[in-house]
Structure formats: structure tokens, C-alpha cells
């Protein structure tokens, strides 16, 4: 997408002179490319320009004129005509998707480039954010999905595709999992989703303020080397300032088996008599700010990761969880497991058909008995939706074992 019109200088001048309540401006280009064998490659592009003015009455404006943001500017042009359009080099994605579809794969690539300006009392902060991911599925086993973070110049190698093909072939022999409780090994990265749902959501400032179950828990839980951290500067979709202009800092949510910090935006920071941790985000200019997770991860442990499956007599090895939702008040979450294997006698045996696992926050954390030394990020990629606001988030974890988990076949 080519550049049009000018730089962001006119906008900066207006914001700097506006002098009233916080103003948030975003200019975002997002694209998705999809392809499947025998079908044409399709692409969608969207540019979104808008502003939120958080005064006495918060106003959310679609492509406003500069005057709407607080100062007389001539000529009267909508914001989208004043700014340089964000760059999103999606053309290589078309070629990659076409090549993969010719090889028999169903592919979807989604990405965005977002420019953000936040003005508070004349101080203007700026951030430039981008992220891109690719999903590759085999046609015959669509639940076998490879999720990759795609950075400029990245390719998908034959070795990677070979591994997906081999996995799809194995999964054609998937058997049903037995109901009940048992041990569960979460492959590298996967436990990050568990931390996101069970720990992160419960300690978002507003949820914690209202009394989520975990936020009220004052006893030790989990092993001493369990540390859960949220650091928006890491992962596939980092930010350097949040949507209120605050630089983010890592927050340790659990340490030494104790509940630690909270994820705070400005409003919830006031409630907690603390300062914002830089976790205030909006799904778009149309939405209010909420405290949100950025990159939630379980820190590296001390157990040799390679020893965890051999050390498990009977259980399941979860390789991918495709979706989850949580109830932070009851302290429960359910996860859809789309790729897993049975573990018998310390060995990985049959692949398992998709199933659901349910976790109780306190029981699940208390049940962790192995934390590996192979911290990995972004093996489960997805968006987090809260109060109708989607946000690209990251998770990470080493290999983790839980002694007991409830499996619903």
C-alpha cells in the first residue's frame, strides 16, 4: 500500500495545542490473505482512522476533522487525508499463500500495522505496532494447525510443512480420550494459555478490584518456582506505550507461590492507589480503555524439559489448545484441546481426538509439579476478546506438568 498525503506533523500540532483531556488517535491498516487448493487467493485490506476523546463525556469519532480534536486547522480535511498511511507489505503474503495452496495446504495470513498517538495535557506520545501470523492446515485433518508468527522476510520451509504433514498423518489414527482426572503435560508454550485464562484475567485491575477468586486468595499456591509474568514489551504484538500514553512495565502476577501484582490502566490504578502499569488498551478507537494482558508467560523452571514425559506414568500430552474461556469469579476455565497424545509408561502413544479440559484455578496451580527449562513463546496464537474488544495477545511457557486435570471427552 503506497503512501499518500503528508506526515503526522499537523496532527501533532493539533494534539499539542488541544490542552484538554486525554485524546487517543489511531491509524490502522489490517490485511488478511487466504488460500486453499483449487480456490483463488483472496485478500482483504482495511484502513481504520479514528479518535477517542476522554472528556466528561467520552466521544469516539470515526475519521474526524482536525478541528474535532481541538483546534482550528485549515483546510478542513478528514484525519485520514492528513496522515501518512501505515505501511503493510502484504504482497509477499499473496505469493506465499498461493505457493502453499498449490502444495495442498489451506492458509490464512492476518496482520496489521497500527500507528497510535496519545495526548495528555499537550504531551504527545506515539507508538507504532505491528503483528502478523499465519495459520496452515492440512485439508484432510483441519484440526492439525500450524500457527506461526510471520516477520518480514520469513518463509515457511519444507521441513516445517513436513512436520505438519507427519502430525496430520498420525492424527488420522486418533482415539477417544477417557473421561476423568489424570496427569497432564502441557507442551512448550501451551501452559501460557492456561496462565492467561486462570491468572491473567483474574488479575486485570477491574476484575481484581471487583473480587475475582484468585485476587482474594491469600494462601500459598503452586510450587515455589512458579512465576507468572505479564510483559507487554515481549511477544508477537508488543507495545511501547499503552493506549493512555503510559510506558508498560512487566508485572509479576504470581511469584513464590503467592499472588503478586495487578494489571492496571489509569482508572483501575486510582482504585488500587497505585500507578498504571501500562496495560490500558482499547480494541479500537470505538471502545473504552480496559486493563488488558500483553504477553503473559510462565517463567523458565529448573526441571530438564526432556525428562518430564518419561517421568509421567500415565496421562496426556497437550500439544495445542485452540480456544478457551474463563470465569474469574468462580475461578474456572474450559479449554478446547485439538491436538494431544496419550502418555503411557513414560512414552507418547496414541493421538487423541479433540476434547475439553476444565480447570479450577486454585486446584490447577496447586497441581503443577514440574516446570521445564524450555520457555517458548507463541506456539498458541490468538486474539483475546474481552467485553467485545478483540486484542492480539501473546503467551509463553516452558513444558509444564499438572498432577491432576479434569478431562471431558
Amino acid at each position, binding site marked *: 500500500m503506497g503512501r499518500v498525503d503528508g506526515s503526522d506533523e499537523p496532527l501533532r500540532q493539533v494534539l499539542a495545542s488541544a490542552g484538554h483531556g486525554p485524546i487517543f488517535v489511531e491509524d490502522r491498516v489490517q490485511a488478511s490473505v487466504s488460500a486453499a487448493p483449487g480456490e483463488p487467493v*483472496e485478500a*482483504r485490506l482495511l484502513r481504520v482512522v479514528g479518535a477517542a476523546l476522554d472528556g466528561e463525556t467520552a*466521544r*469516539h469519532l470515526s475519521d474526524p476533522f482536525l478541528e474535532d480534536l481541538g483546534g482550528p486547522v485549515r483546510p478542513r480535511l478528514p484525519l485520514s487525508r492528513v496522515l501518512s498511511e501505515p505501511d503493510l507489505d502484504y504482497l509477499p503474503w499473496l505469493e506465499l499463500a498461493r505457493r502453499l495452496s498449490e502444495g495442498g495446504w489451506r492458509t490464512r495470513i492476518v496482520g496489521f500495522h497500527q500507528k497510535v498517538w496519545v495526548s495528555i495535557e499537550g504531551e504527545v506520545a506515539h507508538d507504532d505496532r505491528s503483528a502478523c501470523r499465519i495459520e496452515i492446515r492440512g485439508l484432510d485433518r483441519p484440526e492439525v494447525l500450524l500457527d506461526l508468527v510471520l516477520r518480514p522476510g520469513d518463509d515457511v520451509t519444507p521441513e516445517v510443512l513436513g512436520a505438519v504433514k507427519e502430525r496430520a498423518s498420525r492424527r488420522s489414527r486418533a482415539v477417544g480420550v477417557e473421561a476423568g482426572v489424570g496427569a497432564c503435560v502441557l507442551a512448550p508454550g501451551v501452559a501460557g494459555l492456561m496462565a492467561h485464562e486462570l491468572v491473567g484475567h483474574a488479575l486485570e485491575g*477491574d476484575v481484581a478490584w471487583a473480587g475475582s477468586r484468585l485476587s482474594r486468595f491469600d494462601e500459598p499456591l503452586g510450587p515455589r518456582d512458579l512465576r507468572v509474568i505479564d510483559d507487554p514489551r515481549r511477544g508477537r504484538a508488543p507495545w511501547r506505550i499503552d493506549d493512555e500514553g503510559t510506558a508498560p512495565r512487566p508485572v509479576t502476577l504470581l511469584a513464590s507461590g503467592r499472588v503478586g501484582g495487578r494489571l492496571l490502566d489509569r482508572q483501575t490504578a486510582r482504585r488500587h492507589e497505585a500507578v498504571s502499569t501500562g496495560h490500558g488498551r482499547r480494541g479500537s478507537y470505538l471502545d473504552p480503555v480496559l486493563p488488558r494482558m500483553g504477553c503473559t508467560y510462565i517463567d523458565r523452571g529448573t526441571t530438564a524439559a526432556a525428562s518430564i514425559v518419561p517421568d509421567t506414568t500415565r496421562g496426556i500430552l497437550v500439544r495445542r489448545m485452540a480456544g478457551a474461556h474463563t470465569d474469574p469469579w468462580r475461578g474456572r476455565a474450559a479449554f*478446547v484441546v*485439538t491436538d494431544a497424545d496419550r502418555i503411557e509408561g513414560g512414552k507418547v502413544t496414541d493421538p487423541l481426538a479433540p476434547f475439553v479440559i476444565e480447570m479450577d484455578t486454585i486446584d490447577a496451580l496447586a497441581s503443577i509439579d514440574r516446570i521445564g527449562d524450555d520457555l517458548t513463546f507463541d506456539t498458541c496464537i490468538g486474539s483475546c476478546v474481552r467485553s467485545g474488544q478483540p486484542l492480539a495477545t501473546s503467551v509463553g511457557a516452558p513444558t509444564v506438568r499438572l498432577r491432576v486435570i479434569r478431562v471431558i471427552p
Partner: protein
Amino acid sequence: MTDWAASMGEESLLSDARSLWERARLATRGRSVEVYVKHARRWGLRRDPDRASLHEHEVLEVGTACRWTIDGERAVAHVAMVGTDLGRLQHVIESASAVPRTDPASLATEADPPEQREDREPAGARFDPVEVRQWMSEATSISSVELGLTTEILVGPGGWRTLRTRARSSALIGRLPQLVARRGFDVTHLPVAVDERAELVGSSPTLHLAPPAAAPLVMALVHAAHSSRPWVGEETGKGWDVQDQPASPEGLAGGAFDDAGFPTEARALAAGGRVIAGLDGPGTYWRRSYRDAPLPLPSTIVVGAADIRPAPARVIHACRVLPLDRENWMLELPGEPSRYVRTGPAELLRSVRGVFGSPDPTPDGVVTPGLVLERIVLR
């Protein structure tokens, strides 16, 4: 009293849409062109986490979409943009030449403008912000409320125009916020409490799902069995009596014409224990937002009420559909403890054996009474 319908600036929006259409014709060198402009105005209140104060907000969103015929009239291209700027429309149409995109919904022609050109919200769009604030101050279970008026204008090939307005109100209720929504601006019609009781005991093979629990299941089944490749002839339970009713007065979506300008009509999707139709073709083309091209989609799904049973003592108030793969779903029935049903869409269709209670509009776009599911195995 605020009257949005009167203060909308409809004439100016119609004029903008016409100018955009003319610019699009030039930019596409005279191909068959359609321009869709959507203006959304929303006003609402949000309760502070301390539950004491209310914050007011107002949202103004304007978007434009344009479709035109390509490839010797065999396919349709689609672009969308925020705002109604003429220069930007020209730019996005020119940029679209590098973006392959075909649209499954056909474009109306110059010869088939809809008979009905206007479809206005019958109840108007009047509300008193002071009264809404007072109502919400007293309804402390509600964490936010919003009133929205959308105005959609379509300028079709040849320059024919349609206009539709819709007023809706919605609220988030409870700690795990549950969305409730109604047509119109009378917030006093919104429920102020949701039932979160967990009533599941034992392993009864019969489930009674109240409308909020039934609606997501109904929508998932409509997408599975009544899409553009419907399971015509498939056996269903007696309670699966389903229509798509674009003109339903309670419907949050729909209208006299679809989002491509084709006239709509009620369509029976299942009756007499069989799937009889799907959603496809002119009259079913709806846009999820101005950003999305029109697709064959449900408008307002109405579950029939021919054989309504009385409401039983124990009903389920929440249900989540968790798709495991194409053939297998897990229904999660939250409670203490949560219970699960492993099933599939075909099996579920057959298990809908009846309905109970009175039909309720839901934010999922479904108007449904409670559903009775039989031969269910709880896990």
C-alpha cells in the same frame, strides 16, 4: 428529549452517498457500481468499577463500502473505508486492483431496484438521557447501557437509493457480563437481572434451555444446517420449527430489503421434522459491518411456537457451544459444577423435541422460546 431520527442529517448523508457513487463510477470506468454508507450513532452510560458513578459516552461511526463488477461482469470486487471522503474512495478503489477479492453475493442491477426504498424504525429514535441515567442509577446490576441508531444507505446501479434506520438498546448485566438487547430505545424493556442459577442435577436425559441458553445453540445449528449448502431432507426433532424473518418487529437485524438491495421475505428453514431450506441468494445478503462484504446470512431467526409447553421448574440459563471439529461439538452448561454434552449438529437437530415458555428476543439475533432437548447424555 433527544430525537436522533430528526437530528440525523439524513439529507446530507443521502447527498454524500450519491456523490460517492458518482465518484466510484468514474473510478471504475463506468462499471456496475454499488455504494453502501453506514452511519452509527451510539450513546451510553458505563458504571464505574466502584459502582457509584456513571460515565457517559457517545460514538459516531461512519463507513463506506463499494462493490463493482469485474472480470467481464462475472465477479464482484469489494472495498471498504472509514468515513465518506471522496478522495479516499478513489484511492481505495485504485489500490484494490492489487488485491484479489471476489464477492459471493451478486450485485443488483439497474433494472431491479427494490420496490420499497425506505425502511424506517417504526418507533422512531427518541429518548431522554436524564431518564436513562435515572433508570440505570436504580438498576445496579447493570454495568453499562447503550442506545444506538444506525442509518444505512445503498446507492445501486443506475443510481437507485434505499434507506434503512434501526434503533436498538443493549445492556450488560451481572458480574460475568451478559448482553441483553432489544429493538427500540425504551430501556425499560430491557431485563435488569439475569438468572445465573445452576439447576443441573443428576444425569437427566432431558434438558430445558431458557431463551438465553437456547439462542447460541439455535444460531450454531442454523449455520451448520441451513447455510448455503443446507441439509435439506435431514430429520429434525419436532421442536425444530425455524424461520428466517427479516421483517420481524422484534428483530435486531433485517429489513424490507437486504444489504445488497434485494427484497426480502420470510423463509421457512425447517418444519414438520425436516430441514427444508437454507439461506442463499438475493434477499439473504447481509453485512456483518460496513467493513464486510454482504454474504448469505441469517437476519432474525424465529423459532416456532406451534406446540408450546409450559415452562418447567428447572431450566438452564446459559449454554456455550464449543466446536471440537466439523462433526463434534461440546455444549458447556456452566454451573456448580459445570456439565457438558458431547454431541454433533445432526444429533442435536434430532434432539430438539419441543419448546416451552414465551419467545424472547436475544442479542444473538434469535427470537426463541425455551428449547427442550431430549436423549441427552450429560458428562
